[in-house]
């Protein structure tokens, strides 16, 4: 079943994972998109504020996106996202971490400009196996309403 706007009432949506992140993928992403020494080299990482080799924050965002896709966006009538209200990197992502994703629906409202769709604002929380919060994001996506929902409301 495809998920529509109606499937996202405010509240806790669910938990997904774990997803293992390997050293190899951390190095590969950093080499292509964020070749700062703290993301490429143990020695440079240990001298950095993050005190050890850590993944690029954009890598963590991209992995979070994939986890959201595998969890629910892949079966949601999503039309895309206008952006991210706020994203906080709270602790470093390390090689071998097993990530879990928690999703909360903060707000769900019908679009005024496009009444066959709604805007669902999610809070996504990524934690490592120790339960440490690594990343927190608040972001809206545009989701289609169930067929006929707009007409019902007008009627």
């Amino acid at each position, binding site marked *: 079943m495809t998920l529509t706007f109606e499937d996202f009432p405010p509240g806790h949506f669910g938990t997904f994972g774990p997803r293992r992140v390997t050293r190899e993928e951390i190095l590969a992403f950093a080499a292509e998109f964020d070749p700062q020494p703290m993301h490429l080299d143990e020695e440079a990482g240990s001298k*950095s504020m993050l005190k050890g080799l850590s993944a690029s924050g954009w890598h963590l965002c*991209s992995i979070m996106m994939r986890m959201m896709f595998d969890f629910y966006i892949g079966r949601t009538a999503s*039309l*895309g996202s*206008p952006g991210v209200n706020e994203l906080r990197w709270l602790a470093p992502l390390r090689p071998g971490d097993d990530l879990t994703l928690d999703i909360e629906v903060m707000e769900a409202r019908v679009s005024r400009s496009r009444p066959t769709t709604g805007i669902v604002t999610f809070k996504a929380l990524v934690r490592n196996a120790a339960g440490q919060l690594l990343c927190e994001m608040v972001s809206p996506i545009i989701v289609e309403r169930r067929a006929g929902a707009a007409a019902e409301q007008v009627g």
Partner: protein
Amino acid sequence: MRFFEDIEVGQRRELGPFTFTADSIKRFAAQFDPQRFHLDEEEGRKSLFAGLAASGWHVGSVCMKLMVADGQRLAREAAARGEKVAVWGPSPGFRELRWIKPVLAGDTIRFSSEVESVRTSDSRPEWGIVQARNTGTNQRGELVFSFLATAFVPRRSAGA
């Protein structure tokens, strides 16, 4: 890279262009964001994006790539002048990220970064905190991407 003391509100850096090919869009999407409009031209045309569109996380990651390259350029220039090179710290996050218009296959995006605020850190006296508005503009001059980034920047007087 520059030290905190060298950075002023309003300073702007042109980070350079990047062309998003269909192949690079699909390769990133297959790994991180396999929504149909990021993977297939026809699905992209049928979507709100009206074409094969790059994942927003791909656009953000490319902006990071160009920011790092710009920092490395500044570091090389400082080293060539015999100056001490600043090593920037990590970022605690960002706000107000907007994917304003789709980035479609073949688009060339020019990224830039403009400093919006600077302040010292109370908890970490060897660091300053810089906020910069990073943006991307396509080949038609349309603003397509924007976010307000925060980073820890080392102070020249570190440890003083």
